[in-house]
């Protein structure tokens, strides 16, 4: 598992993976320009984003009323609701349901919440056959990996790698053309849908006033997962709610544009309970799992703002660190800037989760693109401060900070150290940059270059200038 490898090793690995670097660059560049075009075309993008933020803030402020309302409306339409405090409760509910209904085969459409609680492993362990049906998720499931991007989970795979997987697992004739790969996947997965007894989906928004859930997607696998099998189970993080159906007139507009630059996603399904008696198709049973897993506590702390997130992925693409290292390096389910905030909160037992907030240059690009204007950099800084308070600091860093404090508060030491550094840099730097520094500073230059100090310090230049006058 990637989780047992230390964060810095994963970063190192990502930076030296050439095909990952190419894929990341291609994907993030495309997403950034599509988003910019779509947001730029809006008559009043700023206002729409303000509205989106206000709507989400209202929903969080009333979560204690809206969740029971959503649940009551789902039940009034003949659906079932499971309130799950943690992953264990959610997994147990779904497994027991599947066992009670004699389910054998399960199809899944993309759901971050189910990744968060490692649902697939649990279902497989209980003896069920589980197939991820989003093409990207399917590819990484065949490869035995985890998603690297919220919106494009398999961006790290080249077409050659996908072809190999399909040849091996689906008996495809070898090819490097994409269309035959698409046809192969369509046929293979269609049979899985037709044989499935249960479909599991995520939820983009719960709509309290109409007891509906909203699922957005481009492929149609979520539509199939929620139409073909006789049981539909939807898993929703409790914060993913809006008060009224009309709110979707704002939320869907900003979600699609921020995620992929589309005006609307290809399919947006609004689902309220199981199929009604007079309907020819649709599921006989509908179950909504409301997953807390720490969210109700986060709401009361100084990371509450992160719960406004609508998982569009725009901040990932905009982030220079994400562009360089990709999603896997973060180690948790959620990657990129928002992942660096959420992972230490939602998956605190990951040993190096506290390091993730360090993986940011605090450039602010994430907040700039966020459709609900989350102050991501502020929260990253707060995480860093919290980690220090909790004593989670590397001893070398502690020593370095002590040295820094000493230097900065004693002018004589400051001058001497500057001179020493400049002397050293004349010997060791190439083209004004250090590629390698001696230990323990090599930890810095392992993944970055360090600019060499200029030949003269500001203080020296200032003194010379004053002499010349």
């Amino acid at each position: 598992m990637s989780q047992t490898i230390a964060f810095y090793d994963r970063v190192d690995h990502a930076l030296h993976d050439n095909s990952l670097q190419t894929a990341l660059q291609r994907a993030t560049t495309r997403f950034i320009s599509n988003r910019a075009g779509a947001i730029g075309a809006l008559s009043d993008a700023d206002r729409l984003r303000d509205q989106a933020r206000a709507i989400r803030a209202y929903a969080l402020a009333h979560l204690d009323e809206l969740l029971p309302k959503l649940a009551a409306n789902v039940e009034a339409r003949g659906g079932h609701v499971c309130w799950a405090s943690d992953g264990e409760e959610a997994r147990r509910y779904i497994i027991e349901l599947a066992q009670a209904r004699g389910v054998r085969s399960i199809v899944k459409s993309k759901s971050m919440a189910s990744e968060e609680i490692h649902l697939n492993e649990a279902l497989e362990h209980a003896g069920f056959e589980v197939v991820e049906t989003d093409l990207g998720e399917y590819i990484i499931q065949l490869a035995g990996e985890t998603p690297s991007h919220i919106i494009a989970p398999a961006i790290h795979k080249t077409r050659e790698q996908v072809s190999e997987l399909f040849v091996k697992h689906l008996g495809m004739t070898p090819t490097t053309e994409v269309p035959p790969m698409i046809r192969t996947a369509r046929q293979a997965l269609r049979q899985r849908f037709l044989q499935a007894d249960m479909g599991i989906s995520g939820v983009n928004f719960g709509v309290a006033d109409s007891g509906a859930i909203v699922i957005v997607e481009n492929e149609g696998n979520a539509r199939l997962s929620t139409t073909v099998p006789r049981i539909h189970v939807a898993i929703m993080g409790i914060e993913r709610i809006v008060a009224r159906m009309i709110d979707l007139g704002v939320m869907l507009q900003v979600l699609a544009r921020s995620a992929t630059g589309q005006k609307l996603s290809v399919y947006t399904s609004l689902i309220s309970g199981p199929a009604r008696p007079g309907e020819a198709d649709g599921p006989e049973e509908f179950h909504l799992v409301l997953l807390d897993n720490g969210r109700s506590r986060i709401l009361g702390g100084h990371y509450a703002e992160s719960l406004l997130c609508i998982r569009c992925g725009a901040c990932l693409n905009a982030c220079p660190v994400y562009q360089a290292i990709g999603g896997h390096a973060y180690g948790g389910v959620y990657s990129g800037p928002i992942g660096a905030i959420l992972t230490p909160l939602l998956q605190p037992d990951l040993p190096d989760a506290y390091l993730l907030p360090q993986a940011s240059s605090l450039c602010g690009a994430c907040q700039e693109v966020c459709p609900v204007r989350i102050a991501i950099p502020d929260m990253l800084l707060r995480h860093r401060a919290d980690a220090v308070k909790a004593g989670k600091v590397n001893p070398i860093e502690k020593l370095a900070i002590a040295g820094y404090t000493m230097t900065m508060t004693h002018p004589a030491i400051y001058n001497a150290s500057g001179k020493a550094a400049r002397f050293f840099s004349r010997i060791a730097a190439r083209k004004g940059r250090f590629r390698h520094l001696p230990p323990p500073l090599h930890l810095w230059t392992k993944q970055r270059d360090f600019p060499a100090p200029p030949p003269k310090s500001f203080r020296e230049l200032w003194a010379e200038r004053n002499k010349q006058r």
Partner: protein
Amino acid sequence: MSRDQILANLRTSLNANRPWLLNEASRAPHEPPPFVLPPENDLAAQFAAELTKLEGKAYRVPNADEALAVIDRLIEETQASSIISWDLDQIGLPGLAELLTARGITLADTTARGEERKARLQALEPIPLCISGVELAIAESGSLLLRHGPGKPRIASLLAPCHIAIVFAHQLVRGLGEALSLLAQRYGDEVFGPTSNLTFITGPSRTADIEMTLSLGIHGPPQIHVIIVEG
């Protein structure tokens, strides 16, 4: 009980942060704009242009007969002998029943529930063509809104590789906000009365999951043909 525990946690948390959240909530109005792009005059033209950009096919026809001609051509192209369809009176295109009879096309039984579910869906799988009507169509995004229900099965826009949708000019609205308001006006609390499912469809099924290469029809229909009857 987890429900009570979660709600208790939420209340405690909101004691601390509700004022801040309410303040954020009051900084902008919540009512969605009826549309979000600079308005254009001709909604049918705008819809057609948007759908075309998405690689869907749009046909603007002056009357029902021209619409039937388009359908006839697609029947021939797909070599359909049977179709997955909404009840024809739910589509509301005059002459459609006669055309299908004349071409010897049978309407597949779309009942796919209960014991028979898997077998029926398996039997419907090879059918190459499906036809539906719409509740509304949104010009500025090229989207259809389908409100399913009795006589309006979901699979009639999902299972087959070619989907034909019939839109009448009066069903066109400008934007998503307008569409949602209209739904609320028409059905109030009973939007989900006769059905559990509303779906917005914006172009053909697509994916970019292999090397960001755009591919159509990974799961839903790779072809979508929208016929706008303007007469």
